[in-house]
Structures are given as C-alpha cells and as structure tokens.
C-alpha cells in the first residue's frame, strides 16, 4: 500500500531563481523507512516541509493514503498534522517552560486522548526509552540526546501513520546518534510507522530501507537496501562521494 505519493511536485521560493524542488516524483510505501540525502541547499528540508504540508507547493500533487493533501485547507492541514503525523527535528522543538512530561503530553491532549490514560502511556514509553527519571525535569536540564529522545517519544506516542524527521541526529554525537536511530528503526519495525527522514549522516541513513539522493531540487538517485544488502553503508558513501562530497 502506498503511504505517500508525490507527482511532479515543484516548489520555488519567492525571489529565487532556481526551483527548490524540481518535478519530484516519488512513492513511499506504508511502513517503509526512507532517508533523504543530498548536499546543503539541495531541497531536503523543503521536501519534508511540503510533504508534511507545513509549506505549500507551486504545482504537482501530493497524496497521503490516497487523499490529496496538497490541496488541504488550513484546517484540514492542522488536523492532518495533529492526528496523522509526528515530527522529529534537529532542534527538538521542546517548549522550555513545560516539564518533559508536559511536553510529551501535548501530543496526546491535542488528539483528545482520554486524560486518564495519558500518564500511563507516557510512563510506559518513558521507561521503554530510558527517560522515566527525567519526566519531572525541564528541557534545559537534559542532554541533547535525551532531548531528542523526548521529541521522538512525543512524535510516536500518538501513533501517527508517518514520522517526519529533519536531521534528527544532526546535533548528536556518535553514541547518541546510534541510540536515536535505534529507536527510530525499532518503532518502524514494531509499530509499522512510515518514516521519512532527512540526514547528512551516512551512518544514520544506513538504518533506512531506502535512500533518496536529491541534487539541485531534482531526484538524483535511489539506493535500495535490498539491492545492496550488507554493503548498503558503502554504497551510500560511494554515491555521495561520486558527486564530489
């Protein structure tokens, strides 16, 4: 089943000469874990923003589970973000004046989850990702890796269909990166959540099922894990260095 379908998607920022996204066609299957790579300015963040309809496209169509989301009204877009997708960002997007528990509960209260179940849900997720001790603290009292785990919990706890992640390991050291990617691939496997992730980091990308390479807003190359098997990591590195990176 197709989760996300992009047809001839074009996007140009005002007062900009080149297309940020230039006739992109791609399909993401349900439960698939896709990494988007490419050099800086190639349009990765833009791609993520338009597929999560934070930003509008100029032409083309985007479908999510057969619904055309690119024509959504503001209200429909809000509902879509609220119910169907989760975000994990490089800068965590945590609210400074809320405790960790309150930060996580936002996703659930917004979805009108029964309030008596919220605490139990948070507790079980926090235990699973080794954050239970931190629930009473404030974001500034946590390390970067811990904060990123909080933002992942916030994204997955509402059981979305898709998770969008923009450089989730961008600010983390190797160990924390591995931890974060471990969690993402675990929930991808166990919960069958579709993940679309932007990353610069080959190691993070190698956790995905498929890597998409963007170049100047165009879809440049696709690498499927099934085709490479064990050598997935090397193939990605090779592909990137072929382009002089």
């Amino acid at each position, binding site marked *: 089943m197709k989760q996300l379908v992009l047809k001839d998607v074009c996007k140009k920022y005002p007062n900009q000469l080149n297309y940020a996204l230039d006739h992109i066609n791609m399909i993401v299957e349900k439960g698939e874990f896709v990494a988007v790579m490419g050099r800086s300015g190639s349009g990765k963040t833009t791609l993520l923003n338009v597929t999560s309809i934070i930003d509008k496209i100029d032409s083309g169509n985007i479908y999510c589970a057969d619904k055309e989301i690119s024509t959504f009204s503001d209200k429909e877009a*809000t509902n879509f973000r609220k119910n169907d997708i989760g975000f994990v960002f490089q800068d965590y997007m945590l609210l400074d004046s809320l405790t960790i528990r309150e930060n996580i509960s936002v996703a659930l209260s917004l979805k009108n989850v029964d*309030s008596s179940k919220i605490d139990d849900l948070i507790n079980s997720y926090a235990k699973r990702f080794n954050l239970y001790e931190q629930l009473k603290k404030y974001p500034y009292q946590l390390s970067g890796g811990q904060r990123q785990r909080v933002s992942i919990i916030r994204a997955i706890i509402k059981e979305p269909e898709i998770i969008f992640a923009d450089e989730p390991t961008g600010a983390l050291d190797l160990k924390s990166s591995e931890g974060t990617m471990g969690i993402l691939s675990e929930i991808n496997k166990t919960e069958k959540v579709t993940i679309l992730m932007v990353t610069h980091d080959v190691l993070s990308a190698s956790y995905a099922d498929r890597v998409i390479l963007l170049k100047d807003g165009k879809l440049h190359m696709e690498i499927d894990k099934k085709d490479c098997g064990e050598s997935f990591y090397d193939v990605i590195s090779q592909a990137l260095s072929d382009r002089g990176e």
Partner: protein
Amino acid sequence: MIWSITKSNIKKNFSLYRIYFLATIGLLSVFIAFLNFISDKIIAEKIGDSGQALVIANGSLVFLIVFLVVFLIYFNNFFVKKRSQELGVLAILGFSKRELTKLLTLENLVILVLSYLVSLLLGPTLYFLAVLVITHLLDLTMEVHWFITVNEFIKSLGILVVVFLINFITNGLIISKQSLIEFVNFSRKAEKKIRIRKVRAIIAITALLLSYILCLATVFSSTRNMLLSIGMVPISLSIIILVILGTIFTIRYGLTFVIFLLKENKKRLYRPLSNIIYPKFNYRIATKNKLLTVLGGLLTLTVSVTGIMVMLYAYSLNGIERLTPSAIEYNVKSENGQVNVTNILENDQVSLVDVDLLRLNTNPEVTITESGQTIPYFDVINYSDYKELMKAQGRTNSIEGSESLPLLINYYPTEISLGKTFNLENAYDVTVKQVSTNNVFSFSTSVTTLVVSDKLYAELSARFPEKEITIRTFNGNSIRSSETFYNQFSMVPDVISSYSREYTVKTANIATYIFITFLSILFIICTGSILYFTSLIEIMENKEEYSYLSKLGYSKKLINRILGYETGILFLIPVLIGIVNGSMLLIFYKYLFMDTLVAGNIIMLSLLLCLFFFLIIYGTFYLLTLRSVKSIINN
C-alpha cells in the same frame, strides 16, 4: 566600527528596540507631564492654597522620580538579559568585554536620547490632554494650554543622566562578571525550579481572605461595632498589614500552589489549551512574581486613592442636597425689600413657600447625636407647611403621614428622642412619636425641627407670637445650580443657596481633585507601559515556540487563544489584585471613616463606576498589547 554595529543592531532588532523605546517614552512622558503639572501657574496657585495638596505634590514627585529611575533601570537590565545570547555570539566572534560594554552603552545612549526628545513633545501634550479630560470630567472651569519650561528640560535630563550612568555601570558589571558560557545560557538560568510551598501558600491566602472579611465586616452595623470596640487604630493597622503581606505572599506562593492544584487534576491539564497554558502560567508567576507584586501594589494604591477621591467628591456633591434642601432659603426679616418676588415668580418653574417657625425652649434638652450632644430648643412648624415645603422640594415620597405627629426631624441620625416627652416653655408637653433625618431646612436654619399638627401650632403661635420667625424658600429643579437665579438674592444677608454651596464644594478642593485624578492617570500609564513592555518581550523571546506548536498541529485559532491567555495572566494578576484590594480598602474606609448621613448608594455607585473605568482602561491596554503580540507571532 562599534557605531556601525550599534546602528545595524538597532535596525535589525527594531521590533525589540521599538518596545524598549515605547516603554521608555511612556514613562518619561509621564514624568515630564507631571513636572508640567506642578509648574502650571493656575494649579500652583490652587495647590499653594491647600497644604494637603502641596504635601501630596512633593511626595508624588519624589515617588515618581524613584519609580522612573527604578523602572528605567529594570527595563535596561531586562533588555540586556534578553539579548545575552546575541552578546555571547559577539563575544565568541572576538569582541572584548570592553567593546561589548561600549556597544551596550552606545545603544543605551541612542535610546535614551531619542526617547528624551520624543518625550519633551509628548509629555506636555499628555499633560494638556489630561487636564482637558479632568476639567471636563469634574465639570470645572479652568484655562488649559500647552507649554514647556526650562526646568523640565533640565530635571528630566538630570534623571536620564543618572539612569544612563547606572545602566552603564550595571551593564559593565553584567558583562564583566559573565563567562562566555553564561552568556549563551543566560536565559536558561531564569528557569529556576518552581517550588511548591503548601503551608506558606495556605497561610498567605488565608491572611488575604481574612483581611477581606474584616473589610466586609464593616458593612453591617453589628459587626462594625464589634470591630470598633477593639479600636480604630489596631483594626486599621492589622487590615493594612494583612492586605500587604497577604498580597505579597499570595503572589509568591499562593498562585503557584493554585496552579499546582489545577495541574494535579489531569483531566483538566490534559487538554490542548491547558496543557500549554498551565505550565506557562506557572513559569510566568515564578519568574515574574516581583514585578507582579510591584504592579499589584501600584494598582491597589491607584484604585484606593482614586476611589477615596471619588467618594469624597460624590459625598460633598450629594451632601449639597441635604445641606441646602431648598434652592434659596433666608429669614424674611433679614431682607428689606431688595428682592423682587413678583418678578421672580413669573418663571413658573419657581415656587415660593413661606414657613412660620417657632423657636421654643424645651426641658429636657434635645439630644441630637448618639454621643449625647444637646440643643435647648425645638423649631416648631406646622404639618401643612411641612407638606407644602416637602412637595416644593420634590420629595413627595418622603412625606410622613399625619399619624406620626409630633415628628422630630433630627439633623443627625439618632433615635434617642423617640417616645420621649418634652416640656415646651414650661407650658406644653409633647411626646415625640416619630424621628426622621429628612430635613426641610438647612443646617444653619434649624437642627431640631419639630412638626406638629396645625391645631397645636395655632395654639402655640397664639401663645408665643414673639418667638415666631418666617423662613422664605424658593424651589424648582432648574434653579438649584443656576448662577443667575442666585444673583437675584446675593445681597440678602445670610442667604442660603444651593448654587453657592455647590460652587464652594467644587472650588475648595479643586486642586486636590485635579491632582489625584492626574496622579491616577499617570499611574495608569506607567503600569500600562510596563505591562505592555514585559508582555511583548516575553512573547518575543519564545517566538519560535509558537511555530513548534503549529507544527505539532495547533491551529491558528488555538495559538491565538494561548497568546491571549499568556498575555492575559500578566495583566490579570495585577489588575485583579489592584481592583479587589482597592475596593476592599475603600469599603473599609467608607464605613469606618465617613459618616452615614449621605445616601450610601450614591457613593457606592460612583465607586463602582470608578472600578468599571479601571477595568475598561486596562482592558484596552490588554487588547492593544494582544494585538501587538499577535502581529509579532503571526509574522
């Protein structure tokens, strides 16, 4: 180099600077307007007459200077802290601490100089408008004009120099004391852990409620007398102490505790709106409790002072009705033909009533106050005259029936004489059947009027003709406040006129009235601009959080509501505290310090109007702030 950074900084951060500018200009203009006010010749003259107003004037000047300096310094500190991250970046880029201090000093200089120039124009204008409004509100005749004096230039410059120097020193200190990492993390520091102090919270809230209960207890005469038996001074002192301490600690501990309780209720907390605003309230109260306390105190002061003035004004205006029940009243004997009665009566609005009055000595003397003051005579009038005069005065509803004769009209509310028998001129016994405070004559004509039946009056008058005088009264609604009508009688010695009474009431305390109104306006502007400034900066600091919320699925509408609540809490706490504390203190004042002669509901009504007016003003401030906040976030 530094200068060009300063310039580009101001340009780049214009929205932040704009708030700083506006707030500084607001405070400075208020100060200049005040200087303008006390150097106004007309007002100076009036203040000179009244020692009380002079004391208020000097006191307020000192207060305002302290206030201005403290808040300008507060603004600067606030501003520097908000920008510490940016300063940290510059420091990392290789700016020395000296250069950073220089940068801040230059920015400070630019802001203060520009605000100074604008305020020199705005201050006198503010003054001009304020006096215009006041004279209209109080219905006073006074010339108003725009002016500025050298004194103002110098004084306000002096204050700015002081502020500038202090800012220079504190900025230098902040920068030299801070390490690079602290710069970058400065705003985090403020997020100290929020502690819940249950016992203190409960004590604080109880103290505040107790003070309210004590204030309200003065409303009912039984509880009032209980309080009075303890003594006026200890009661007043303990109420004031309870209000002050209760307020300070309720803001400090009570509010966080209340929100903690709210948050405990998960059903409530886990809703899209409360999940964000409860924690944010908590944070706001924890980090801003000193500011909230100061503002709450200022507002309490403003509301109480304004309220007392409004009450006194309403009291004296309302007292006119009692003090001069007729538009004109005089003893016929003291007039010798100067008044052209036929001419006056051509106006059919005007009615003339002549009342014959017998002043008869009595044994025992008449007690006129609860405390036992006595008067040795009655002023006896007959029932028909009483009715006619009451009708002419438009008080048909308060006329007592003939079954209540003899009726004693006491000036002061006391029922001591009820049922008592008095012996008039050692000849007649009368027993008072009813007492009332609805006087038909002015205080100076009669304090103890005794209304008797026409028959008894005829007998008394036949017996003591030499004790009879005739009081002439003129009535009619349109003439009570008319100067031209009064002028027709002004040459009569000892004439009692409602017009001249009203005139005295309005002019005698004009300086005090204008003064307090003016001070209230100043306070309102000060507190308003501080609230505006703080709200905007707070929201701007966390600007990106609202885009997170939108990415998480919060609709624009929900985000706007969150903004409304977040801004609202900063406004609501001081305003609510000011209005509730203020009205409690006013109730206390009214029932303990003002006599109950004048209709209490008129005083209450004017008080309510005054509180309503405060709500409207702060409501408007709130809406304006919210508008700016929303425009910042939605861009």
